[in-house]
């Protein structure tokens, strides 16, 4: 039994095991998005669900991202067939209402679904405080690198994607991100990630 060779050979196992051990700490399903920090993809979409006052808009209204420059935008992609979207629905509606009158816009974007189904779902869920937009052929969803629903994008006042939240979003996250984005300064050299308050 050649122990010297055996000892050297056994060392080869170390990088393999380390790799696997490290791999156990990672989630293969969590794919980071390249969008945060970059200019938000522009869109021009139509309202199919009006929302409720004071955030209400008319059905058929066109919403352009460009026209919201200088304000914070929260874009939530959802679908009537999406179970997890039910978890965040009430939260989003309530939080959106608290920001009425402030320079923040909440919009839902329907993903891979019929507007009729979306409208029916909203009324089953007790209404939605902000308008929802339809996205034919999922072009905007693809533009935002959507993997599934629900996904929520937070756009800062410089028109950049500040943060992408995958899965149902909680009231704390909503409030924290929106507040910090509202407080961030507007300008050509403003940081793309939420900055400290008082800028």
């Amino acid at each position: 039994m050649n122990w010297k060779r055996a000892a050297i050979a056994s060392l080869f196992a170390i990088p393999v095991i380390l790799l696997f051990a490290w791999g156990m700490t990672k989630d293969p399903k969590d794919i980071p998005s390249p969008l945060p920090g970059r200019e938000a993809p522009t869109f021009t979409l139509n309202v199919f669900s009006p929302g409720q006052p004071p955030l209400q808009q008319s059905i058929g209204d066109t919403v352009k991202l460009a026209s919201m420059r200088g304000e914070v935008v929260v874009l939530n992609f959802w679908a009537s067939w999406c179970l997890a979207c039910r978890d965040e629905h009430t939260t989003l509606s309530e939080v959106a209402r608290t920001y009425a009158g402030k320079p923040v816009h909440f919009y839902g974007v329907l993903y891979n679904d019929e507007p009729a189904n979306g409208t029916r779902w909203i009324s089953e869920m007790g209404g939605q405080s902000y308008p929802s937009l339809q996205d034919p052929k999922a072009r905007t969803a693809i533009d935002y690198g959507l993997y599934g629903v629900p996904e929520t994008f937070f756009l800062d006042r410089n028109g950049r994607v500040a943060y992408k939240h995958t899965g149902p979003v909680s009231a704390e996250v909503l409030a924290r991100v929106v507040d910090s984005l509202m407080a961030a300064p507007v300008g050509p050299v403003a940081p793309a990630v939420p900055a400290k308050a008082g800028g």
Partner: protein
Amino acid sequence: MIGTLARDALLVSLAVTAFGLVIGPVAIARGKREWIPLSYAAIYTNFLLLTIATLAMIFALVTHDFSVAYVAQVGSRATPLLYTVISLWGALEGSILFWGWVLAMYAAAVVWINHERPGNLVPYAGTALLAVSLFFTILLIGPANPFGVVYPVPPDGPGPNPLLQNHILMAIHPPLLYLGYVGMAVPYAFAVGAMLSGEVERDDWIRITRRWTLASWGFLSAAIIAGMWWSYEVLGWGGYWAWDPVENASFIPWLTATAFLHSAMVQERRQMLRLWNLNLVVGTFVLTILGTFLTRSGIISSVHAFTTGTIGYFFLAFIAVVLVSALIMVAGVSDRLKTVGHFDSPASRETIFLLNNLFLTAFMFTVLTGTLFPLVAEAVRGVKVSVGEPFFNRMSLPMIVALLFLMGVGPALPWKAASPAEVKNKLFPPAAGALVLGAIALAMGIRNFYGVLAFACTGYALVANLREFYIGAAARRNAHGEGWGTALSRLVAGNRRRYGGYVSHMGVFLVALGIAASSSLRTEREATLVAGQSINIAGRTARLKNVWGREEKQRSVIGVTLELMNGETVTGRIEPRMNFYPTSQQPVPTPEVKSFLFGDLYANLQAFQPQGKNATVKLIWEPLVPWIWLGGGVVILGALIGIWPNRRRSVA
């Protein structure tokens, strides 16, 4: 109650296995050989206990005993009996129980057959098998416990995953896979036994396990083909192989096992490649454990992944132990396995087997690197990358084609040395087969380089293998005056291993042609039809008759009936459907496949209008796909021939 009984059986098994694991080496070290049968008794007892546990689980499933955790997880009163029984291996805990049982069975059988052999080879092999069994029993007591108690007892369960009760192949693929995968532990255990007992210079460990290895290889081959067939019939995209990590996990050890089947023959004839064969056998087992780890740990996302939990850490520990011990043992004996033999000539079957091993190992390495690369790239670059079909196809096609060609050269060349005249006589004529099949490929419409090349190489190898049957039978006719049939059957019976191998080669040729044709010539048409409208594809017409629905015990079904038309006559019917299971929000598309001699008509229901007014159907024409399944059957037939006991000693 049945759950507690089973769990007690597993606890006893834990103690018994641990005891057997220790008593064997202790007996040898202390010279108390009379204790060795105690370790064998542990192996037999383990098999008995695991049989009790498995039967208990089947009983609990069939009687819908929802107090047992696993039954509560996968059982349902609505599920038909067959699918209830086979849900034994449908989810993680049950599959580990099944694994443990198969391993215990193999261990008991191989030890029983060989226990009278003198020496330490069998005792140490038993020790190795007990060690692996111990790991799985630990899993069954710990993270993969299927016998947990559920209280309060639910009245019903969700049933198995809808995808797993949609097709009968679910009854076949997993057992075949486990019989093959787990079976690789047997040659491994005997290799370990040879190393620990100091008998590694002798070939006994290979001789004893030859049939076990061939049987496991046969099961694994069948399992891979069955898995391809299942995914083809069930998943709705008309494909049969996606280079998904779990598919790769079953394919990788198959490649090294195939290499071993060939290089073992070189070792038996020339006493060479002994270290290489040891590496192959041990490596195959390590790769099976690696594959299990990859699919159960959650580190690589896969269509097959079981739910993850702490079991991944157990497998990580096990793979560390197996890998380190394997490296230590093989490196430790390596200097005793220096090459003693020699080759008579480079123009010989031995050289071809070396090349065969080269390409099979390189292929294995390619698939392994590709499967693990996303993990490595993330570790090194911090960026997630994908390694998918385009990569694997691009890198493996050259090697596959080379292997197909070698499959023609190997049988043609003799052992030891071939004279130049022989080389010419044996290697040139099969080129006719290459030309004919190449021409056929072009005539069929195949235009891509590798498609035509695959056909040509298959043609070459096909003629070469058929020639071996012809030459052998002709010689018998001349010598004994037998008829062709008798000559052929006596030829095969006189050397089952060799001719069984050639039969398996034929199976591979059928598979190769099926894959080459279907990937090059596949056509599809998708259309939304109302009743009376038709789609044309590959010279066939399918007309929509109606959209219908029906209720079954465990699911609702919406389907369409498409009538196959020849002019105005209806020649057949194809009915793709969608199965709606109560537990799943998305329906399971259930395609239907109609097989013809030269291809499959594959129909998938993509969408339908709720009022049944129209339906979107996708029809795919898949040339030669049935040949893949047929070829799989022929491969297994060849393995069976090779395993069948000879009436007299064979010279392969």
